[in-house]
């Protein structure tokens, strides 16, 4: 069990893997989204028009 995990509930033993999973998914997803739609989003923002 990871030493940083002090929880006793069902999450016990899963907190660190879950944290890594959350961070990895967010980085890959938002990086992909930005690569695909970043320019569109910037152009769409009111202060860019």
């Amino acid at each position, binding site marked *: 069990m990871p030493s940083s995990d002090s929880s006793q509930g069902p*999450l016990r033993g899963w*907190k660190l893997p879950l944290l890594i999973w959350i961070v990895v998914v967010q980085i890959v997803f*938002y990086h992909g989204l930005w690569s*695909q739609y970043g320019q569109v*989003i910037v152009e769409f923002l009111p202060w860019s028009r």
Partner: protein
Amino acid sequence: MEQVINLIAFLVIAIVATISGSWILAAAGLKTRRWVLDFALAGGAGLVFLALLTAGTAFLHLLWLPPWFLLVLLSGVAFLLHRLFREGESFSRPDQVGHGCEPVLDATARSGTLGKIAGLLLVGLVTVHLLLNLLAAMAPVTGVDSLIYHLSIPKIYLLAGGMTYLPSMYQSAWPLLIQMIFLFAQWFQNAEVAQMMNFWAVFLSCLVIYELAGGRTRRIFALVAVLLYLSISDVIYQSSIALVDVAAALFLLLAFAALTIWLQARQTTRWLVLSGVLAGAFAAGRISNAGLVIALIAALIAVILMERRQDGQSLPARLAPAAVISAAAFLVVLPWHLRSWWYTGNPIYPYLYAFFGGLNFSAEAAAYLTQLSFFKTVGSRSLGGLLTLPWDITMDPHRFRSGVIGPVLLTCLPLVAIYRRQMPSSWFRLAVFFSAAALPIWYLTYVRVRSLLPVVALLMVLTVLGIGALLADLQVAGWFKIIVVGVLVAWLGTGLLTNFYHHTSAAAVTLGLKNPNDYLRASLTATGFGWFDDFQLLNKALPSQARLLIWEDRGFYLDREYLWASGLARGLASFEELQDSERLVRRLEQWGVTHLVWGRAASASKELERLRQLLMEGKTPTLLIYQSPRLEVRKILFRNYDTASTSPEAESINRDGGPSAQ
């Protein structure tokens, strides 16, 4: 003013269908006493009944009747059933049921001030989403497939006075139950109202999702589940465009809800019949949808088999509920496949052509279409592809020719496994088994997110239950919960931005801030359709009896009957006819085609380009009557054409749509 009339027409259809649905469900004793769920069930069932009634009317070629007659008939029959069976007590009293199982958390727990503020914020977000969806749905009709067939086939049926096989449009042999809702809306008012019916389907889906999640966790998390659904870009897109998938998703979600009610009470098979009818309506929305209905029935069988066997109950008796739901679903979808078989000789035309064959289609075209439907996205299927599906579909939805579902599902679905002991048992099992069975079937058939929406919605409900369990877990540190809430907030914000991005222009048209024709030109041109103005001109200039052969499949904006030139290339014309322009013209004469309408740019496919050369440049006796930088129109000079009475000049069309002054 026109927008207000459209809104009133939409409300009339939605209200009459919902009240009729409510009366019929009450007559059958199918009430849960949970008004949100009862409303959604009545709304969804009402749409199915209206679609079936419209289909029957169209099939009998009774579309000359006034459309309000159908609303009167539906509500009248529903009222009669309600009076007869409710008051006469022919059926047993409504089931006193909840809507599933034990809440995963204390669903009735009171929220603190922070919770109330968050709740209000979420209600506000849902309202903004729905308002944008509605405003965009009220704008003029755009889209691609909606202009190709979802709205065009109903429009042609209305022009023809009834349902008929359209040999050049193979989609006209498909199950078209949801297009019958679009047909009724166009019949009653116009195609904008048809788009608004999709908004209505999304609204009702939100109610079902809210109820599926709401009884099992705090209401605030149920609102999050609704918002996750509203943030899927396919849902945003389809909420304002006349495609079939959001309405189909509503029907399967309701079928699932009805099944969970039966699982809890198990006193009457009527919930199973309702579930089957709704599942059948889902299957009648798209040929490949049958796969998800099979998954739902398989999940029900798995839930039943996992339960402890009661004394003396045989296996067939235990599986009878699955037979009931299958039979009801089959009865709803069967007439559509019989229709296809009657029209073409193939019940799932033009698929499985090698086995069934089919009229007016070639083996090559059938193989190409199958390849397009099944392989154009992820290519050949593999076990590895199935296992990495959740990651792939989240990170690279373009491979699936789909929109974005967001990262929350993938991020937080593990919480469902971690907190599985807190999940409500039979409901949880049904949702998990259904999803597990549906994913491989979907992966092997039509791999688009839009055809998986009911499963995605259910997985979102499960995910929200997992998030709710985590946030209620006193053993978990606050900072960890803040990270999970941050994941939610980031995606819900992105979802709202997506909705603004998709719908701002259309909403501006509805609010009178933008010229509708400018909007149409821009939206249609963005999807490669640059001849809106030409079509408007042809509507004014061509004789009302003119029958066109068009090179472009998106014929919705033409107010004349037409055949697709692509249909000729797919097998409507024989190989010999496609080699000889005179033979082809004789065939066109048999079909009543009077004019050829062809784009001036290079044709999209080799086959169309060959046809263009054959018809527009070959020996075909034609008369050029209109040309613009985008297209040209030729009148076919059949053998009995009288050149003495009509000179080429008198036939030409000028820019105002009248005869040319030259």
